């Protein structure tokens, strides 16, 4: 039997105005287990807390009931008080007689009556409380970053800076991501390569960072602080540690007609390739679908010219298992397919391009060496039409596009338009917009400059139709301000395609038990207060995998994710919430019902040997809860038919006791 002390708070007149606190403390004296009961003006004050501490010592109390304000207010306070008195902090129960009693009832008699019942329920519960100790688990002091774009790079650099080891897994042969493909960046117009490639070099040279390029995560097990991850290193048929990246093989490779994905198929590369000059790691990769040697054993030229002897046609996919304490998802985005937008004739004309293709066309390292030439005939375009919101802000019923605003298009279109007018003042540039959204530092100034200083023609309205006619593209559009329909003969049409999260992230989300929204963006733990954490402990989000973002925003989120990771890895041990589920193995059937409803994957099954009454043993499958992963929702306790699963702090018998006390 517990020795319970009851402390009724007046909260000045907040409680005492509607509840006869004296009567409450008197009435609760007679409850089972109660050996001491009193009331005081402000229980949460230092004097009130001291009163509790003294009473614990004087009356050898083992449990405390405080009848006061909401536990959401002061439960933590009184738990600390209990700890100071030498009690387990979880031997405290709060009866909420302010928010849920004195403040909502006017009559002294009903208020007092209800306060007594709430007090009785708390006493009944505390009688069944057991001391709880939060579980501890060690932390593997290494982080995994999935995705090697600017988000992943920045996160990895920041974590490494704090002294922790980081591995980057990137599915492409090089890190760099989308930013490596960009020409200039808004609103400052620095060249993307100039600011990104030094960071890529930093990553390569940082002793704390390992890069798994051309690799993917295939399995994730474990929990916060203790993830076991399997990484598949795809065979690139080149020994990474030996290859010097000299490029001799690339030059000699006879198979030169492979569409170059880095330039979005606007030119070709060889079967053995280095994606771009500043690739990290700067190592060649053989495309197994294009290489003659790998397909039919006829060639082998690259092996002959490789002075380092790095070519290995027999290389196999390799699986690596590693342990991590934290995982950062930085899987990024892709522009959506333009295939379904027939009205813009993307499939019919080479001169209708996406904005990302436009980036490559204007990039000095791109297929035209930075000269703005039409893809169809390599002539200089004189009239360019930019179309914004292509596939963004579509209603959900329109299956072609996305419901959300892609956020970055307004600014990069302004950039493209401005740069075009700057380099080629003879070009006429139209931008068709629905709204121009420029909420960022120096963003609106930038857009206004495009209009005012560079003479870009912004037209409020949308393009309805693009028709290729001879060498021209007939653009039919509306100008809503002038209230007329425009017909423009354009040489080039640039579509600001909506962006979507990388589709390969879907299976990853399942592996990580991290949730995704209807658009396949990763869900943050709280949209305002925990924007870089996923709901799964130990999994963090960086960059556009969480929602559309420009570079400055991505970098700041990457830093925020890194700081959360550092905060986690800096701990030697993690202490959990002690109010977690646990299974009574003797009663567990091993039926898997609990495992199926657990949102955190905290329940696994183990085969356990039981001694039977007749001294034989029997092996049974029983549930085992990982207290470091369990968040204590209690869903499993109801799914369990035998009642083997129970929740500490909110146990079946405790809630039943509360029900009984209230209904008595």
């Amino acid at each position, binding site marked *: 039997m517990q020795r319970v002390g009851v402390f009724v708070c007046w909260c000045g007149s907040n409680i005492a105005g509607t509840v006869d606190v004296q009567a409450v403390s008197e009435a609760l004296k007679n409850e089972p287990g109660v050996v001491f009961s009193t009331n005081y003006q402000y229980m949460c004050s230092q004097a009130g807390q001291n009163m509790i501490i003294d009473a614990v010592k004087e009356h050898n109390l083992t449990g405390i009931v405080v009848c006061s304000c909401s536990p959401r207010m002061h439960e933590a306070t009184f738990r600390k008080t209990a700890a100071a008195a030498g009690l387990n902090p979880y031997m405290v129960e709060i009866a909420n007689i302010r928010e849920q009693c004195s403040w909502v009832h006017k009559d002294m008699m009903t208020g007092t009556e209800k306060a007594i019942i709430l007090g009785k329920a708390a006493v009944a519960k505390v009688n069944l409380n057991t001391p709880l100790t939060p579980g501890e688990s060690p932390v593997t002091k290494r982080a995994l970053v999935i995705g090697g774009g600017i988000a992943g790079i920045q996160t990895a650099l920041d974590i490494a800076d704090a002294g922790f080891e980081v591995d980057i897994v990137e599915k492409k042969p090089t890190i760099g991501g989308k930013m490596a493909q960009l020409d200039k960046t808004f609103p400052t117009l620095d060249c993307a390569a100039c600011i990104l490639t030094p960071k890529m070099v930093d990553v390569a040279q940082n002793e704390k960072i390992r890069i798994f390029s051309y690799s993917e995560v295939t399995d994730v097990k474990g929990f916060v602080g203790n993830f076991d991850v399997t990484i598949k290193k795809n065979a690139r048929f080149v020994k990474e540690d030996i290859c010097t990246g000299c490029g001799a093989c690339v030059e000699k490779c006879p198979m030169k007609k492979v569409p170059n994905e880095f330039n979005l198929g606007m030119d070709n590369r060889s079967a053995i390739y280095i994606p771009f000059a500043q690739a990290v790691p700067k190592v060649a990769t053989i495309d197994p679908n294009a290489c003659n040697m790998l397909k039919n054993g006829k060639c082998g030229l690259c092996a002959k010219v490789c002075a380092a002897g790095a070519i290995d046609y027999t290389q196999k996919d390799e699986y690596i298992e590693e342990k991590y304490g934290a995982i950062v998802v930085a899987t990024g985005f892709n522009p959506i397919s333009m295939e379904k937008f027939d009205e813009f004739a993307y499939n019919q004309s080479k001169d209708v391009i996406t904005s990302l293709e436009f980036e490559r066309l204007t990039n000095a390292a791109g297929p035209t060496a930075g000269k703005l030439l039409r893809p169809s005939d390599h002539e200089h375009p004189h009239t360019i039409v930019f179309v914004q*919101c292509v596939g963004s802000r579509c209603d959900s019923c329109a299956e072609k596009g996305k419901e959300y605003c892609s956020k970055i298009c307004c600014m990069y279109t302004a950039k493209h338009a401005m740069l075009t007018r700057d380099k080629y003042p003879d070009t006429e540039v139209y931008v068709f917009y*629905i709204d121009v959204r420029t909420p960022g530092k120096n963003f609106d100034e930038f857009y206004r400059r495009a209009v005012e200083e560079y003479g870009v023609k912004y037209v409020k309205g949308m*393009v*309805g139709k693009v028709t290729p006619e001879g060498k021209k593209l007939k653009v039919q559009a509306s100008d809503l301000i002038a209230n007329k329909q425009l017909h423009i003969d354009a040489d080039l049409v640039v579509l600001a395609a909506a962006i979507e999260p990388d589709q390969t992230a879907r299976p990853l989300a399942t592996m990580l038990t991290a949730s995704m929204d209807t658009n396949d963006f990763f869900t943050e733990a709280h949209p305002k207060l925990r924007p870089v954490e996923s709901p799964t402990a130990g999994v963090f989000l960086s960059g556009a995998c969480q929602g559309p973002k420009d570079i400055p925003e991505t970098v700041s989120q990457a830093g925020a994710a890194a700081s959360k990771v550092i905060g986690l890895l800096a701990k030697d041990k993690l202490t959990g919430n002690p109010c977690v589920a646990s299974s009574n193995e003797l009663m567990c059937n091993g039926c898997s019902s609990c495992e199926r409803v657990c949102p955190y994957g905290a329940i696994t099954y183990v085969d356990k040997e039981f001694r039977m009454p007749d001294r034989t043993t029997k092996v049974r499958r029983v549930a085992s809860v990982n207290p470091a992963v369990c968040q204590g929702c209690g869903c499993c306790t109801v799914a369990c038919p035998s009642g083997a699963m129970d929740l500490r702090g909110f146990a079946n018998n405790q809630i039943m006791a509360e029900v009984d006390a209230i209904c008595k």
Partner: protein
Amino acid sequence: MHKTYLQEEIIRMSGVNPSKCMRCGKCSASCPAYDEMEYHPHQFVNMVESGDIEPLLKSESLYKCLSCFACIERCPRGVEPAKLVEAVRLTAIRKQGANHMTANDVPALLDDEMPQQAIVSAFRKYSK
């Protein structure tokens, strides 16, 4: 805002929610009859939304719409302007008792120039 009876009727008949419109103007950009119209498709949506129905009922634009449904096809928000035009057109027609037409009136209207389809569609509309 309180909706007028006429406005509600048109919204009900068309099954269109004009407040979904985000004023992109793609309907007007797609419209092949744009230059013939006094009120263009996007204006149609806007005027129905703001309850400005009377001018629409009187406008020639009603009969310039080809019902090609390009606006319906292209609208990113699923607003379906052509259905609104049709609803306003029907409202206008129903109001014009003078324009009512019965099967008996048809033979008199026939001549070599008149496409049969036009007679049939006129009959459909004006007999309602």
